[in-house]
């Protein structure tokens, strides 16, 4: 499997059911070529996004997280993505202090008809993650302290 030998990295995508999932579907139906690192988790709406989903994914070893929803003003549930926009922007600004690279997280808006855009978003984001490389592993520091004392 490409992910097991490092040819692919682990990228998690949170897509809203109505616009972005539809947009990804459109891209698929049109047989657009795109990297397959991204694995989709479908949500009813980006309003369902708890910023902690992103944090948990990144801390659990995901190399990148992409969130995509309907364009603001076009939310299937009217307001969900307005809340998401605020929460995710705050998260993006928060990540630098945590030591997690904020470049590994991105949020965007892709509508159901924007298959081409979806292909571009996935390709660009996957390329970015490959440039950043696999996310750093958390070695429990006991090993590090042990290593520091050797010799």
């Amino acid at each position: 499997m490409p992910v097991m030998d490092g040819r692919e990295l682990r990228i998690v995508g949170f897509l809203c059911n109505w616009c972005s999932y539809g947009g990804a579907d459109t891209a698929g139906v049109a047989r657009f070529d795109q990297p397959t690192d991204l694995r989709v988790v479908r949500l009813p709406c980006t309003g369902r996004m708890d910023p902690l989903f992103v944090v948990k994914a990144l801390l659990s070893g995901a190399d990148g997280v992409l969130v995509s929803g309907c364009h603001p003003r076009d939310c299937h549930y009217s307001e969900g993505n307005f809340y998401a926009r605020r929460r995710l922007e705050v998260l993006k600004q928060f990540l630098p202090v945590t030591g997690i690279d904020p470049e590994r997280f991105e949020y965007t808006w892709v509508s159901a008809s924007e298959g081409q855009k979806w292909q571009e978003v996935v390709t660009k984001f996957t390329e970015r993650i490959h440039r950043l490389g696999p996310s750093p592993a958390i070695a429990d520091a006991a090993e590090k302290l042990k290593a520091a004392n050797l010799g």
Partner: protein
Amino acid sequence: MSKLDTLKEQIQEALPDLDFVVAWERGFDPAHATPYHIKEEADLDRMVLDATCAHNLASFLTGFKGKKVGVVVKGCDSRTVVQLMQEKLIDREAVTVFGVPCRGVLDKAKLRRAVDLSRVESLEADETTVRLSANGEEQELPREELVADKCITCRYPNPLEFDHMAGKPLEPVGDEATQCARIEAFEEKPVQERFEFWVGEMDRCIRCYACRNACPLCVCRDHCIGDSRDPHWVSQETDIRNKWMFQLIHASHLAGRCTECGECERACPMDIPVLMFKKKLSSAVKELFNYESGVDPAAIPPLFTFQIDEETINERGW
């Protein structure tokens, strides 16, 4: 009349109508104070008011439902009262707030670096100097070297919400720019270094939840997802990832709510700078929504609402 005497008088007068008042008394040695309940006049004798009174007594308020209580608050603590009012977590009518302007409290890590904190025999602090003796040695140190970081950049020395005030109002000593200095310096380091810093800090964490329990706004109490099995956000393991995830859960749940009282960092028995996470979130909220928590009882926290056109958020063109 000293601030302490004025405060005692104010409390004495209000006491008959209250179940108790939360204040500070001397702790196990001169360097430590401890919260206690004043139920009757005789209890007033034990009250102290000095630079060792670091505790945010407003953090106990949400546990007193159904009681009429009084609480002594410094400037930073009063922001907690305001935030609790904003979130309708306390009945303001049932709380009598005794405000005291504050010039800063002593930081235990700084004290420990300067003296043998475990063997302090006496401690006295005035506006500029801290006089203490430890291990038979007397020392005089400038107060500014020993006060907590949050006090050096204090913008709210005077309580914002109070029923009584003991003492004259003080001038703020800090501004927004200096408040963020520690975080800005930290964020200049390469991301890998920041990552390794937190790995080291989280390794030392013993997952005691002192930070969570000391936080005045952590009101989920027994339903905290940090130790629930359902939902299963974090496991029982005390490995770095789970402890770090808990810190980020805690900080995220305080986004736009944290008033930076600093109890989390003060409470930590392993001296981990956990306040950094919350301070960064507060400054992100300030920058994006020009909002500061715990200042205006009628304000709506920005993450509870939205605007159709957000001036400060670009539409993420890809």
